[in-house]
């Protein structure tokens, strides 16, 4: 009898794996609707409750504000620069509204991001001939990311100052994060503090651990999600 219960659990588990994707779609829409009206926030703790999940690879992340935030641009450029938050805000802003797709499976529909096109900053710095890639570093002290120069110049790659029509919150990588719309969200490095133009692509933090460097949504990491770019 006990054995039968163990086997029943295994059977239910296997059935759950098979029916999971369909059940998840139902729950995501149902829980999403509940979460919108839930004043306690408890529904956000349930699985598949929708929304962003917080991932940080560092032990703790310092908080930066308009007074002490700096973004440096260096490497193979003619005019290395350091930007304050106010200088970034003074540049032309671009607003994009796309889905956010995490490589672990969650997707947040139609999320607005707003900021300066990375190509604007690269052009201002003057990329030297021979440059092939861009490396991003973060003030959490650990995370890093990379794009090829062609990817970095795309119009849907932003140095984002606003997310969901608010200033980027600390837990979302504020005050400034990268936003690479067509790629899995690990490319959109949080707490961005450094942009270095290099002569080759150097894999970032998760890429050293096996994730794809060219992380196009739906065409990498063994996933077939609908593209976001």
């Amino acid at each position: 009898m006990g054995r039968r219960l163990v086997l029943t659990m295994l059977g239910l588990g296997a059935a759950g794996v098979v029916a999971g994707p369909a059940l998840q779609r139902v729950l995501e829409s149902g829980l999403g609707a509940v979460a919108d009206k839930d004043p306690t926030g408890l529904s956000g703790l349930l699985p598949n409750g929708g929304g962003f999940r917080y991932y940080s690879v560092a032990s703790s992340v310092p908080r930066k504000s308009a007074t002490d935030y700096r973004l440096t641009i260096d490497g193979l450029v003619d005019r290395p620069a350091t930007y304050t938050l106010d200088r970034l805000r003074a540049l032309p802003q671009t607003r994009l509204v796309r889905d956010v797709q995490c490589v672990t499976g969650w997707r947040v529909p139609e999320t607005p991001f707003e900021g300066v096109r990375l190509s604007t900053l690269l052009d201002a710095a003057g990329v030297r001939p021979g440059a092939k890639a861009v490396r991003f570093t973060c003030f959490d002290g650990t995370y890093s990311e990379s794009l090829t120069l062609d990817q970095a110049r795309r119009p849907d790659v932003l140095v984002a100052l606003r997310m969901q029509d608010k200033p980027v919150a600390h837990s979302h990588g504020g005050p400034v994060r990268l936003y690479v719309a067509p790629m899995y969200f690990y490319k959109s490095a949080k707490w961005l503090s450094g942009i270095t133009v290099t002569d080759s692509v150097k894999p970032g933090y998760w890429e050293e651990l096996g994730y794809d460097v060219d992380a196009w949504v739906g065409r990498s990491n063994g996933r077939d999600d609908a593209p976001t770019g």
Partner: protein
Amino acid sequence: MTSTPGSGGPTAATMPPPADPTGRVHRFSRAERWVHRTTAWLMLLCVATAACLYLPQLAELVGRRHLVVTVHQWSGLLIPVPLLAGLVSRALRADLSRLNRFGPHDRQWLRAVRRRDRRPGSRPAGKFNAGQKLYAAWIAGAVLVMTGTGLLMWFTGLAPLVWRTGATFVHDWLALAIGIVLAGHMAMALADPEARRGMRTGSVERHWARAEHPLWGEFAERPDGRSGESRDDSPDLR
């Protein structure tokens, strides 16, 4: 009555009886206690790291995602190992077959629980009551399902994406259920110090055993508890 030197006086009269060596009944062997303790620590580690990965507030506090993931994967994978290693113990195997076997008294026990009947004698149980048997089988199945779905998520090359999505779905929701059931397991242990002592020291008080597990045959006939047929071994409902 004439007093004799050394034996008179009030102390002799009120002295409580010395601890009866047969007042305690052997319940769990050293191997079983080791298996329980090791499994419990692995499970706590696995649940704690799961919470740090899953709950945004804890994730923000702890960070170190790669380290936490590694600890979670290995502690989870190791959870079944102590029990498998413990299978070399005859006492553990005997208790597993007791847990596996449901008798008519177990049905009566479950009915009494449903009616919230707490009268003495209304909840007959052998060495393990029906609730403990259900818990043991449920958590064993749950751990196996979590191990399987966890491996699918860990080694992403093992299966197509649609399986991984399903595995993640099962892993997330079953984790929630396990969290609730484990909390119940620990709350019941917290409410019963003698049951905890049994798992910690290996023996329980005879009157506790008689009250909580009246059909547990061993302690009645054999104070040393080493052998003896248990009434648990009666009618088999498999």
